[in-house]
């Protein structure tokens, strides 16, 4: 089997349309497709990396179909163009928005026995689709989504990795101490005060069993995935490495910048302290 390397360039505020009106229909009616993953990406312009899993003999045909389908979609969808402001901060200009490009990350051949290594990524992509296809995507939405995912992961990791919450809380103390010293931590502190109430609400929804039924379906699916993975081996050492692997899965798929990652980490550590979880 092979993962085809496809990149869909479009302005971030159009990504939800691209997912719901193009990616989902393409994937649902394609006989050559064995699975697909999506990852946000910003190299050479805002884009979604769509990796298509197929049998090697079907790769040329599937690539042609994707080329034709997404080109037609971009032609007819009437999505807004992203204005190119020169000079850009790089040697080369980004790819034009509303185009499909190929091979911007390496296509990967895999054997059937290795397919299991991709199951997390395949499931996570489905969760991204369900959670993000309906609303205009921006940094705030991505940050909130990532907050849900990380908090959910912490909740499901805690029973097998009891030290986790204490570790995260202890990390929060020095962060707080330097909060007035660096520009980044100042921004994090200000932003935290702005969104604190919302984050507390989300956290209570996640951790309070009585409120759990009101959580979105995609989030419940995420909790199931977290539980399955965290409980796979049952010991704390392995659980801590699975926790890190799943954190990295979230960061990779959402292409969180260092700044966003730092903000998110700060929010989570503060909330854990604040809520005394």
């Amino acid at each position, binding site marked *: 089997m092979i993962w085809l390397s496809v990149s869909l360039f479009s302005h971030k505020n159009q990504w939800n349309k691209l997912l719901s009106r193009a990616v989902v229909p393409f994937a649902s009616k394609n006989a050559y497709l064995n699975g697909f993953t999506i990852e946000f990406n910003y190299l050479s312009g805002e884009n979604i990396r769509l990796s298509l899993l197929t049998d090697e003999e079907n790769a*040329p045909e599937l690539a042609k179909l994707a080329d034709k389908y997404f080109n037609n979609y971009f032609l007819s969808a009437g999505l807004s163009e992203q204005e190119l402001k020169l*000079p850009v901060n790089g040697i*080369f200009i980004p790819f034009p928005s509303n185009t499909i490009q190929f091979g911007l990350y390496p296509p990967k051949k895999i054997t059937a026995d290795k397919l299991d290594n991709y199951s997390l990524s395949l499931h996570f992509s489905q969760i991204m689709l369900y959670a993000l296809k309906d609303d205009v995507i921006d940094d705030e939405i991505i940050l909130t989504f990532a907050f849900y995912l990380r908090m959910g992961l912490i909740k499901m990791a805690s029973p097998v990795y009891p030290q986790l919450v204490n570790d995260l809380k202890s990390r929060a103390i020095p962060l707080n101490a330097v909060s007035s010293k660096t520009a980044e931590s100042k921004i994090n502190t200000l932003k935290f005060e702005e969104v604190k109430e919302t984050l507390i609400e989300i956290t209570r929804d996640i951790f309070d069993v009585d409120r759990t039924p009101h959580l979105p379906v995609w989030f419940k699916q995420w909790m199931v995935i977290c539980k399955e993975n965290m409980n796979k081996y049952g010991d704390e050492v392995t659980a801590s490495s699975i926790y890190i692997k799943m954190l990295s899965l979230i960061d990779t798929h959402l292409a969180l910048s260092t700044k966003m990652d730092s903000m998110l980490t700060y929010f989570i550590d503060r909330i854990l302290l604040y809520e005394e979880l």
Partner: protein
Amino acid sequence: MNRLHQLRQTLPQNIKDNEGYDDLEFIVLNYNSHDDMEQWIKENMSEHILNGRLKYYKTTEPVSWSPSHAKNIAYKLATGEIICGKAADNFTGKNFAHYVNELFNKNTDIVLTPIDFHRSKPDYQPANDVLGEVCIKKHDFLKIEGFDERMDRYGFEDYDLINRLEMIDVKRLLIEDFTYLQYISHNNNERYALPTDDLRAIYINYHSPSTSEAIFLYKDSRFEKGVLVDNFTKDAANCVYAYTPRKYHFEYSLNEPGWQTGTWINENDHIKFSPDSSKKLIFIKQQKDGQTILIDTDNSSIFYSITDNKLIDTILTFKHFIYTRSIMEANLNGKNAVVNKGVFGKATVYKNFQPQPITV
């Protein structure tokens, strides 16, 4: 050159790690360093010099670091059948000499290297810091006349050496045991200096997501102009690349015919370029949104001034490596196994602090 701070860590360790192998000499070449290297060797390595394990040579002639020339001198001074080149920041690893001897006994006509130029092993990724390590038969080294001395700055001289050895049927054997590829990590400022002092300005004309044309204006009125290519993103609209990996050796390259050179002059609101091999070009200089731009007189191209320091460094680094890489590629394409036209590694050196000069 000027790497005593690393040598004082690596040399004693390397001698110690190979003390079980008798038929071995360590050659240290002081390539006109100005960092008390001689004094340190005198004070700390005398024992090894006296017992013949270490041979210390010094040359006072070089004014700047030329890796090909420096290595050629050191390799010519080596008296053994097999020469192992290590930089001042490289550790040999324990029993490296035994390892090398074993491989050369098992295989005929080989060169040991960490450079997998043909990408024969997809997961083999040694650090850039050790790519200059090489173990070669002195006979083969002399046959191809050593490192190409046109490569007078850091980068690709070791790639080129191995490529040319392959042309005379010496087989590339990868150093797969990373025990022998340990090093002291350091930043690029110690490896090469970017020519920012000579530079007046850089302008870029953006052609596409994978090609841009750059003009470098130097303070001495020279200019260089060329088209840079990102091979990683080239022809990305072609769906074949969804399932076929691109074939390229390096992420970036320079389009043919390479750098166009000539002189430039600033006249009022325009810049006049006089290329060495084509007719004059005139660009009108304008300010747009606070940016300096150059517009071709027939309005066909716009060049934007690059002012971001990080981006300037990126472009200059690319340009630095393109210089030596172009020589390597020319040798490869022209199948030039032998270089230097009979003259290489020439220098006057002084052995073990003695005053008598030796001509190499």
